[in-house]
């Protein structure tokens, strides 16, 4: 049985009359990557700020690496590394100097500092940038330097607040590789993100957080399987009638109506249910214009649990979420 590196019990936090964090409890196990997935303003950063002792705890309890964040903040600080949401490197210092400074403010002995800097430059592939001023690095490199800095003191847990925000997908995927490597070395990682793919690809476990509450927690597969095994996307001549017909079928778990389409969640293997569905719609004399089958994605999970899309009102970054059968995982 692995120990819990983070334990949070009934955490609440308000800014004035606005409740940013509403009775949150969760645990993070040693060695796992744990994600908070939620839209901006869901309370993710507040939780991270409380756990990293940057914000005073108002109500509830939290322990990091066995230390109470309220009473043993100094011990907590010594146990953790942080990568902030905003870039905060000293641009007028070199890669090495930025790391050197970090080691110094954490009172690392010189020898240990030097050795650790070499290890981390290697890990983040910044070896030939060691004497480059931080301002001359690319965005991705800056982030990697911050990652290296967060790991300088060999923390028990690394906190990352939106680590890949604003990066293109290639940079983001490289960042994930580094994070997996860090996990392999035994560091527990707690991250917040509003990227579905990030939570999906990277995390051992995910908590979906919305309006300051944890809606659901589980592995990516658990969350998806809870929705159903397969998802059918339909466009027909009369969606309303079709929805009623489908709801009457036993293996159909849920039917969601959109403006022009239907999302049908199936509880069992779709290959056996699909002919029956098509047959019933045909019998009602309704035309099917589009039919598509896929496994539920994190997007579907999110919409299912929160009742809204993650980036509502913003232009969709991904296509509607429909993949041809067989291509999806």
């Amino acid at each position: 049985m692995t120990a819990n590196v983070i334990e949070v019990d009934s955490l609440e936090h308000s800014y004035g009359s606005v409740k940013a964090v509403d009775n949150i409890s969760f645990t993070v196990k040693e060695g796992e990557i744990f994600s908070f997935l939620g839209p901006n303003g869901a309370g993710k950063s507040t939780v991270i700020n409380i756990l990293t002792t940057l914000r005073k705890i108002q109500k509830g309890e939290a322990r990091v690496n066995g230390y109470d964040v309220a009473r043993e903040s100094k011990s907590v600080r010594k146990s953790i590394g942080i990568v902030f949401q905003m870039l905060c490197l000293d641009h007028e210092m070199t890669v090495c100097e930025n790391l050197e400074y970090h080691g110094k403010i954490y009172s690392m002995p010189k020898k240990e500092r030097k050795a650790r800097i070499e290890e981390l430059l290697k890990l983040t592939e910044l070896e030939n940038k060691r004497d480059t001023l931080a301002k001359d690095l690319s965005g991705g490199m800056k982030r990697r330097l911050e990652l290296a800095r967060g790991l300088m003191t060999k923390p028990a847990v690394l906190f990352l607040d939106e680590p890949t925000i604003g990066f293109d997908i290639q940079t983001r995927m490289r960042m994930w590789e580094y994070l997996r490597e860090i996990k392999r070395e035994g560091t527990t990682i707690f991250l917040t993100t509003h990227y579905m793919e990030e939570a999906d690809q990277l995390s051992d476990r995910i908590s979906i957080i919305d309006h300051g509450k944890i809606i659901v927690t589980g592995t990516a597969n658990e969350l998806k399987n809870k929705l159903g095994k397969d998802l059918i996307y339909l466009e027909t001549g009369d969606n309303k009638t079709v929805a009623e017909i489908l709801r009457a079928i036993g293996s159909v778990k849920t039917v969601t109506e959109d403006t022009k389409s239907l999302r049908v969640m199936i509880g069992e293997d779709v290959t056996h249910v699909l002919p029956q569905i098509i047959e019933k719609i045909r019998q009602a004399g309704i035309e099917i214009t589009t039919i598509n089958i896929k496994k539920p994605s994190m997007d579907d999970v999110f919409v299912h649990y929160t009742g809204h899309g993650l980036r509502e009102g913003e232009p969709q970054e991904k296509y509607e979420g429909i993949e041809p059968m067989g291509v999806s995982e």
Partner: protein
Amino acid sequence: MNFEFRAIYWRDMLKFFRFKSMLISSLIQPVMWLAFFGLAMSESFDQLTSMIPPIEGVQNVDYLSYMGAGIIAMDVLFSSLFGGTSLMFDKKYSLLRETLASPTPRFHIILGVGLSGVTKAFIQTAMIIGFGKLIGMDFFLGYTLTETLIAIAGIFLLVGIFTLGFLFLSGSIAITIENPEGMQSILTLLSMPLFFVSNALYPVDAFPAVLRFLSMFNPLTLLANGIRYFALGDNFSVMGIHYMYTPADISISFLGLLFFALTMLATSLWRFNKVDV
């Protein structure tokens, strides 16, 4: 015992020597004060006061030497008063986050910034004394080598305490204020009375009583008095005014500056402990 303040100091000095513009301007500034303001003022003052007979039996000091002490005080006042500005930018651009989130006590941040300010002030003081001697400032006239060294040590000690005090003040404002414009206007507002209600550049003997009274509490006056005591001796006259410093006077300078610095330290600790990241 922790030494994290050395990290703050290290970073500050590293950047001081890296930014050539910052380094060069801080070296040139004291020389400019002396070269332009100093020479121009001393010429006119000496001309105006040439009719006043020197006081019998007392060493007469020219205005340049009198003012040299004040220039040191002015110069370190300005650089330390504006020295906290970098903290405000560090805060604004989230650079301070890393340090504030570390186990480093806030006191060490203040101390590190303070000590780097003292180092810069020492460099400037040395520049003024060196350049001043070159253009005929009568510092340490007739002193033996030992006396000169003691005098220099005394000056540096006073300058150090003074600089810490103003850096703590400046740091407190920087950490409280959100925008550069606000910081700028507060500092300008502060520097006005400090600058004029002091005996740094001219004697206060002819001041209205209220201003003269106020000038006694001005750290700038305390520092200028202290430097004059060490650099010009305890008995001299300038422009017909007889200056005599007793051990009590010099103790007041030391204790006054120490009190000022400690008060500002307390203020800055109070402000820094309130900072949210």
